[in-house]
């Protein structure tokens, strides 16, 4: 009963508003203090695991881009988490979980307020406290903007990006989230997204796509007749990033059980691990076959692809299905990266392929592999479309407006010199001889 992310908080707010306890919640066996404590402890562990994903993103994005833009990327990833936490406290949380609302948009008021019972086991049937709930969700919020950060790297204006992130994380992400996890209209329709293949990853991915289209490709990436490789500057950094993301995913998915339920959490750990492993194997064989030599950066993307793919159904598919979901995600990501390059959509770290493409795949996969007969492919597809339409358009408008007003792109000269010196006046690797003719 804890498996649906929305129920508890939505119910709780409803209760507060309506002033009575629905029978469903007057559970026969009350949760013991110890159970409340272990549930809440697990949710806090999951919270710090999701936190570390932000370091994972920072490392991965920095590693797959050039050394001359590293300070810039690290700066963005450090400030995004701050922006994410604060905007989510100010308005995001109450936009995403507005309690009883029209199903499209609602708002439960500014800032945090645990109320009288928020910090007791009454808040969520002994699963977690109000503050735990807030923080766990807040850690997710910043992720969406971080996904964009990788795709627009090496050419976006810092200020414009920060403004965009603030709006996207503070308003658009939580409104979109409310449709499902807040108990909105898609939740009513039976759409399922366990931990956010769509609600987090695709939401970030659609924005990434919109922004990249508005921004254009990096200087020198595409010449008249061909695609040029712009190499990332540190594979160890990229690898550290992916392992940290994988680690964080245990909290991302494991925490989305919204309690420490041994059965569900352990199942989720296994499906998550196995999908990541299968993603690696899928990407490895694909890149080895297609590119002749096995490409580490693709295999790293493969692990993430598997993880994004399993996220929507981690608690409702069997480990065997997780293998298939992960394998396909791993294969998909390699072809997707190549396809976007052919379309001249320049995404330095493969964020759109990993988060958008595999996020869609994962969401649809629930309709195929779920052990819960109520899940339907059609409804899953509907959800994908609703989110795609809203997020892409919203991101396009916001970023487009910023483009008109503040501009979104650094000058060509700034881009060639590197954002580190131009935007931050400092270098990332003081003293190191770096040979860059790009």
């Amino acid at each position, binding site marked *: 009963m804890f498996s649906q992310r929305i129920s508890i908080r939505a119910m709780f707010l409803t209760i507060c508003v309506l002033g009575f306890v629905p029978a469903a919640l007057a559970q026969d066996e009350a949760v013991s203090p110890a159970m409340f404590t272990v549930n809440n402890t697990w949710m806090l562990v999951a919270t710090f695991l999701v936190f570390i994903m932000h370091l994972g993103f920072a490392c991965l994005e920095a590693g797959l881009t050039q050394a001359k833009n590293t300070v810039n990327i690290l700066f963005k990833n450090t400030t995004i988490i701050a922006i994410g936490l604060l905007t989510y406290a100010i308005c995001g949380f109450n936009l995403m979980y507005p309690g009883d609302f029209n199903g499209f948009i609602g708002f439960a008021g500014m800032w945090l307020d645990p109320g009288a019972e928020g910090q007791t086991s009454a808040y969520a049937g002994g699963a977690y406290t109000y503050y735990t709930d807030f923080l766990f969700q807040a850690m997710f919020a910043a992720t969406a903007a971080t996904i964009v950060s990788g795709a627009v790297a090496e050419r976006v204006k810092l200020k414009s990006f920060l403004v965009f992130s603030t709006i996207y994380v503070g308003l658009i992400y939580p409104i979109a989230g409310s449709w499902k996890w807040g108990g909105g209209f898609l939740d009513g329709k039976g759409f399922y997204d366990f931990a956010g293949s769509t609600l987090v990853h695709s939401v970030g991915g659609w924005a990434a796509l919109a922004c990249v289209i508005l921004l254009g490709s990096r200087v020198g990436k595409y010449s008249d007749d061909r695609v040029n490789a712009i190499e990332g500057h540190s594979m160890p950094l990229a690898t550290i990033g992916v392992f940290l993301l994988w680690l964080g995913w245990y909290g991302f998915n494991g925490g989305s059980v919204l309690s420490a339920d041994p059965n569900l959490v352990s199942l989720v750990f296994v499906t998550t691990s196995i999908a990541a492993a299968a993603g690696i194997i899928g990407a490895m064989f694909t890149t080895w076959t297609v590119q002749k030599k096995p490409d580490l950066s693709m295999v790293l993307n493969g692990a993430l692809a598997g993880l994004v793919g399993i996220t929507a159904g981690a608690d409702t598919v069997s480990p065997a299905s997780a293998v298939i979901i992960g394998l396909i995600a791993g294969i998909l990501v390699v072809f997707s990266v190549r396809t976007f390059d052919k379309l001249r959509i320049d995404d330095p770290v493969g964020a759109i392929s990993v988060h958008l493409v595999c996020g869609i795949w994962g969401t649809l996969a629930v309709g195929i592999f779920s052990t819960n007969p109520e899940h339907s492919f059609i409804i899953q597809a509907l959800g994908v479309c609703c989110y795609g339409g809203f997020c892409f358009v919203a991101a396009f408008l916001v970023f487009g407006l910023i483009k008109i007003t503040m501009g979104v792109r650094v000058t060509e000269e700034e881009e*060639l010199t590197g954002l580190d*010196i131009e935007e931050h*006046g*400092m*270098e990332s690797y003081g003293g190191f*001889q770096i*040979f*860059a*003719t*790009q």
Partner: protein
Amino acid sequence: MKLVVAYIQPGKLNRVKRVLAENKITKMSITNALGCGQQMGFTETYRGVPREVNLLKKVRIEIAVNNEFVKPAVAAITEGAKTGAIGDGKIFVIDLGECIRIRTEEVGEAAIG
């Protein structure tokens, strides 16, 4: 035989190489260098402390050519590297006394290309 040494902006290397190739000059050696010239550099700040950087990144190209290729080489480098802005770089031409191809132990003009 001459040794042509050029300092250019790093971002211009690919263009210079292309123009050189069009002039049949394909052999060269490249090092990264730091240059101090009319271009004034810029000021970084690190932890609140300003830091003047007047050693800018340059690419050093070294090309050994036979005499008839000096003009084309200089022209090609100029064409590829010139933007008209300060910092475009400089070319030096030095007399080359001898040239030996290690693989074949050929010497002189035959060894250059």
